């Protein structure tokens, strides 16, 4: 069987084709420009994940929201659920870039980090 992917690891977006054997194992990978492409199709075919970026409420800050991101990619099927969960969080200003906003998202061992400084009023 043949499966087609567009790699999302860099802006180039390589079109990668994989050939599977009868057991669903990858036999051949074609079209990738680098090793990230191989990594991508391997995880994408078994456990697709995405980095989630969203925002949390800020109390007493110069801005009402602070942008945040998951330090590691989250399973794709949990993205909407994770976005909802992170929305419930609010933090007090001042916030510092890389500050830990959530220590362990859904017990997955994934931290949620602030992506900028927000000064207090």
């Amino acid at each position: 069987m043949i499966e087609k992917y567009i790699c999302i690891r860099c802006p180039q977006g390589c079109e990668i084709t994989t050939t599977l054997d009868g057991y669903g194992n990858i036999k051949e990978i074609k079209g990738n420009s680098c090793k990230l492409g191989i990594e991508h199709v391997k995880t994408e075919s078994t456990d697709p994940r995405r980095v989630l970026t969203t925002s949390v409420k800020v109390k007493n800050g110069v801005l009402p929201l602070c942008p945040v991101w998951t330090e590691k990619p989250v399973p794709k099927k949990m993205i909407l659920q994770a976005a909802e969960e992170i929305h419930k969080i609010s933090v007090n200003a001042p916030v510092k870039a890389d500050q830990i906003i959530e220590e362990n998202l859904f017990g997955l061992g994934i931290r949620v980090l602030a992506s900028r400084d927000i000064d207090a009023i």
Partner: protein
Amino acid sequence: MKNCDVAVIGAGPAGLAAAIEARKNGAQKVIIIERNNEAGGILPQCIHNGFGSVLFKKDLPGPRYAHEFIKQARELGVEMIFDTMAIDITPNRKIYATNSRDGLLEIDSKSIVLAMGCRERTRAQIRIPGDRPAGVYTAGMVQRLVNMEGMLPGRKFVILGSGDIGMIMARRLVLEGAKVIKVLEALPYLTGLRRNYVQCLQDFDIPLSLGTTVKRIIGKKRLNAIETVKLDEKMTPAAGTEEIIECDTLMLSVGLIPENELSKKAGVLLDPLTGGPVVDCDMQTSVPGIFACGNVVTIYDLVDYVSKAGFIAGKSAAMFTAKNTESGGTIDIIPGDNVRSVIPQKLKTSGLLESVSLQFRVSREFNKSIAIYIKENGRIVKKSVRKYARPAEMLEITIEEKELKGINGQMQVQVAPND
């Protein structure tokens, strides 16, 4: 009157990079004039990841990428003047700016870096007929409202334009609980990066209709619906293909325009193909001592390349300040077959020592292998092969020092199928 060595207009990624590099290359007093109340340009509202893959080999969110540069600019003592609008620049490098604290500011600078960035095309520029209700927004405006102001300006969206900001905002709106009915694209191909098609549209089952545009906007006070129509290969609407889609918001992601009102006042020559200043390999414009970098020059795909252009402009500006070198004789670099535009448009003949990178876009889609030719009066200086080429993806080719030797005639960048 204020004096400085290098004055930068705009504290976005291009301006920050230029200011940092100017300081590192000996410019003592470097100032940035910024109309917003903070640095970072558009990056603070680009909360998605995907920044930094070239410069940092990391996948960072926009604000985090900006943070690196803001921190460094502060550490190097770059003076940033916020809430201040530059309103005029003279060819002898005097800047007039205004704000509510100082009234009119006059700044005399030994060199200037233009880094004003770009603005979005609006409904008026693409001439969509119909009513004029509330609920028609540009993608950047929606991005600002959702990501920074905490407002969701609609519930049921249709997006026109498959540019990166449009696709990224489609995903963002879904994560914020809005419905995105579909993304329309007038051209027969995707205009943004394909990775955004995968992770923003495909992941969230948002349909994409290529070769389709908005024919009419319907709604009295608020948008009720839009009428779409399919376009043939000559971009002519095909009668009978109209469709009414009910929605409360139309979001436009239909391109960016370099913002060059100030460049024109300074007497800088503009390139009609890019809409930005004509620059040489030092990012110097046609006016000696005035440099330009980032999206004010041409619309880049990646912020990393904007920063890289900023580094060159900042270093060159510091050199100009130190030596007051007039630009030497220059050679034209022009787009040839299948190439839409090239940056830089000029090559310096004096002091031609280092390698030069050219960035360009093809004018049509090539799904098979292509060859890039750099020619000097018909002679092939360099040939390079790529797997494919698309108008949405900027290409780069580097001409090495040894290949630059002996070049003194007009240079052309050409693309052809590689048979």
